[in-house]
């Protein structure tokens, strides 16, 4: 563990920039919206800005990514394929713990199964992650309900925690260690660790007052969602409010659905893109021949919450699918973000329980 003065913390970013393309929290000047995006000037970085509106998955799982270009010659029946791999490594500076958890879910999806996604692996294996502890929550946060914050426990190369005049810098990997050794930082002591724990507890204590938008007792509904002991009418009422826009999947740090699209370029060339898709779309699960296992909208909504909250899905991710970032709540036109649906599920059950008396 090390210490770095608060006004020097961006030196870490400067050091990273020598070998990596730098990404971090930045405020778009015209709309004042916080993004996690590429950094051109170090002084653009706003480490203590509110949780970024976009999930950092945008960086290693882009919304639209060219994966190959190919040419097919009909006469010679010859195909030329050129894969597109982004070469330079990327550093994520100042990612929050909820987003890191989402990244770990995506890691298990793209890398942990029978098929390894080459493009994802290429982005990920060279990535450097610097997490930033949330010493206070934001209005939309609910990481304390999903065991994904307010601090990162593993999976980072460096972890920062603001302790008054200093940042505590914890090393989480060889890569992190190597970088720190290039900078001459003061070593931290046990008292700093204790201060960190104090800060975290203070942060958790602030949730009641500050994080008012999205509180949800996730653990209570895991059982209901897993066992499916919910009436059809419930999912129908949720489905009625769904505008089928796809926003929830797009902003969710652990959502991974995508579509493959081929575009003709000039001449005989084509390009293949991987684009974000969403299970809330009717066409997403439709198969050749017309069969669609999730045609009614309520089936698609049911599926989403199963993915995020059920025990069976959690086994795949090794943690709940929801990371408590609160983004789905503010992008949803129908106001059926995860927190509010969780509360509705609880109320359904209390209603049912009451009716038995």
């Amino acid at each position, binding site marked *: 563990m090390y210490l770095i003065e608060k006004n020097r913390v961006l030196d870490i970013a400067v050091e990273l920039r020598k070998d990596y393309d730098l990404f971090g929290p*930045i405020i*778009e000047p*015209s*709309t*004042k*919206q916080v*993004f996690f*995006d*590429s*950094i*051109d000037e170090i002084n*653009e970085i706003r480490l203590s800005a509110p949780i970024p*509106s*976009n999930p950092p998955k*945008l960086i290693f799982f*882009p*919304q*639209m*990514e060219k994966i190959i270009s190919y040419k097919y010659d009909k006469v010679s029946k010859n195909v030329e394929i050129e894969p597109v791999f982004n070469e330079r490594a990327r550093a994520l500076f100042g990612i929050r713990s909820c987003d890191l958890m989402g990244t770990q879910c995506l890691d298990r999806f793209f890398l942990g199964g029978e098929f390894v996604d080459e493009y994802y692996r290429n982005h990920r294996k060279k990535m450097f992650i610097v997490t930033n502890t949330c010493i206070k929550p934001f209005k939309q946060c609910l990481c304390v309900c999903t065991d994904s914050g307010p601090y990162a426990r593993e999976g980072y190369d460096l972890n920062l925690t603001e302790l008054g005049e200093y940042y505590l810098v914890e090393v989480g990997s060889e890569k992190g260690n190597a970088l720190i050794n290039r900078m001459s930082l003061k070593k931290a002591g046990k008292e700093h660790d204790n201060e960190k724990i104090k800060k975290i507890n203070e942060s958790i204590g602030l949730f009641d007052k500050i994080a008012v938008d999205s509180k949800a007792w996730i653990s209570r509904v895991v059982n209901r969602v897993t066992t499916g002991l919910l009436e059809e009418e419930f999912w129908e009422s949720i489905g*009625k*409010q769904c*505008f*089928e*826009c*796809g*926003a929830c999947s*797009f902003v969710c740090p652990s959502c991974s659905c995508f*579509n493959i*699209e081929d*575009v*003709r*370029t*000039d001449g005989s060339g084509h390009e293949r893109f991987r*684009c974000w*898709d969403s299970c809330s*779309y*009717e*066409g997403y699960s*439709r198969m050749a021949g*017309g069969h669609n296992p999730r045609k009614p909208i309520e089936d698609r909504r049911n599926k989403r919450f199963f993915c995020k909250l059920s025990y069976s899905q959690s086994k795949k991710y090794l943690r709940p699918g929801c990371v408590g970032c609160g983004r789905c709540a*503010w*992008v*949803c*036109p*129908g*106001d059926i973000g995860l927190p509010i649906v969780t509360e509705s599920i609880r109320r359904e059950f209390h209603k049912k329980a009451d009716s038995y008396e």
Partner: protein
Amino acid sequence: MNYKPGICTFCGTGCGHLLKVTNGQINGVFPSQNHPVSKGRLCVRGWNIHELLNTRARITTPLIKKNDKFEKATYDEAISYLIEKLLEYSDSTAKELGFLASPRSSNEENYLFMKLARAVFKNNNISLISDTGHRNSLNVLEKGTGMAGMLGSLEEISKCEFILVVGMDITELNPIIGSEIHLAAKRGATLVTIDRRKTEIAELSDKFLFVRPASGKLALSAFAKVLLEENLIDTDYLKKFTEGHSEYIELVKSLDYKDIITKTGCNIDDIKEIAREFGKAKSGMAFFPSGISGFDKDTISHIFNLFLLSGKIGREGCGVNPLTGINNLQGSCDMGIAPDLLTGFQRLNDNEILTKFSKYWNTELNPILGIPVYDMLYENIRGFSKAIVLVDFDEGVARGAHQMEKVEFIAYIGTYENEVTHLANVVLPTASYVECDGTFTNAERRVQLTEKKLEPKYDVLPAWKLYAKIAEKSGMKWNYESPSDIMKEIADLTPSYSGISYDKLRNSYGIQWPCDKDHPDGTRRIDIKNSKSKYKFAALTGKFKTPSGSEDFPYLLIIGRALDYWQKNNIMKHTFIPLREYNATLLLYPEGYIEISSEDAKELQVRDYSPVRVKSPYGVMETKAMVSDRVKPDTVYVPYFVQKMITEFLFQHREIMHYRELDVIPVKIIKV
């Protein structure tokens, strides 16, 4: 930082977004959290706009047709050819040349296109490729209040106590406005939908009045009748702020409840309950479709009169709100794309106005009102169009692609590849909206600027530069350095836009007109405190003709155009995911379908996918049945998007069809 703020250009909501620009391409989109209307939401189209903006299906070079084949040309060559041909057709009678503008073009582009037609070619035959449905709404509102645009404000939906959605599948057409309404209802506002078909918003409403086809305005009049009978009228408001109510009140009083019940097919208690809640509410808004699926003048007048009677115009949370389905439909009307208007709804036949424009443009203008271009295509009486200049033709809204084949000379100006370009004699490509600056005016009169994000992908000119070039080659030099200069000119000539400038628009979320000396920051909504004269009740026909079936033709067939526009829309074809989603039903029923209620299906002994023959006094077609309870018994529904159905069946009815959405055809259905 790769995300640059902009405005979504699909529908008339005008949501705010940010586009990711990397490697000279648009590679992503993200919603704008702080935008006052969209507040961080986007719909399926908005979330996938990068697919459209990334398409290679662009027109990349000017083309001239020689011996039935297209040959590449330079802009200079193509423009010279265009001018040469247009001059042939533009004589003083000007009955042979027409200009069809696009409701998707920016304000600056439409303004210059209009200026080109009027100042350079002395021609007033300029129309929009979409229907003039929106003009009906604007005409009624302008006559009644002086404002040729939505009376309320989208930001005030959250303050509205009673929201009425009339005949609009709002969550599909303008989803984010539908979302605002849904959220207001969740927070306690009363949401009532009146429709002849059960839409998504109907299912989300507190009360849904499932009316028989063409009886909507009777239901609205019934509300007024209840308000009068139960003394729920604000007589103070009526006296102080309105005039001309006696005819309306007389008409409403003369209605008979028994008649109302028969014609609307609704329960009188439901009508009375809704009317009472409406009367007691302190604020109310009406939303209805305007444009391709818009209403006739009489229905709009009924909506207006009801709301005026109840004191729900000119106050907070109130408004009569026609919603434009296409991004710049309102702006196009503002820019004078009409045979009888100049900008800002200023009348062409007003001598003072015409002189003002003539002086500013430094040329004599043709004072004779133009002919609507669609009239020129269909009727030989008012002059037959031999030449047309077409901008961004969109099969989803434009009619008469086959009529175009009879036109001698067609010039096509546009950005994306299109099925109609092969009909053209000369093609001039333009840059897409992210390749130049431009403003767009949404349904609530909000003029928003979207700035250039990247250089034109191909060697193409932005439309404003193209029009300026055409003018220059015709002998008229316009000195615009940028679209900002064009807006300066628009502001100079248009009272409602006079306070708008790019400096004000940059780094803002747009300005709602009227924006002038009295309202330097724009006008959210019409306000009784600022009205210079009393609001006038609209004149009504007094007729409530509701069609009914006969013994031979017992079912009433209604046609749906609105949603299906998005399925046929030309730009939608260049996307993947939105196209896939809009095509969902088409893939299940490739030969089209006719929606039949389960009650009727049982009687006819048909099931879902049963082949049926649909016969009317004018024509016949075969299609598949779709059994659904989104239609009332005795009503059947046919969507407009299946080509065969349009050309074969509906074409046979073209003589009797005037108002598409309101058209009702009595049919009989036979199981095949």
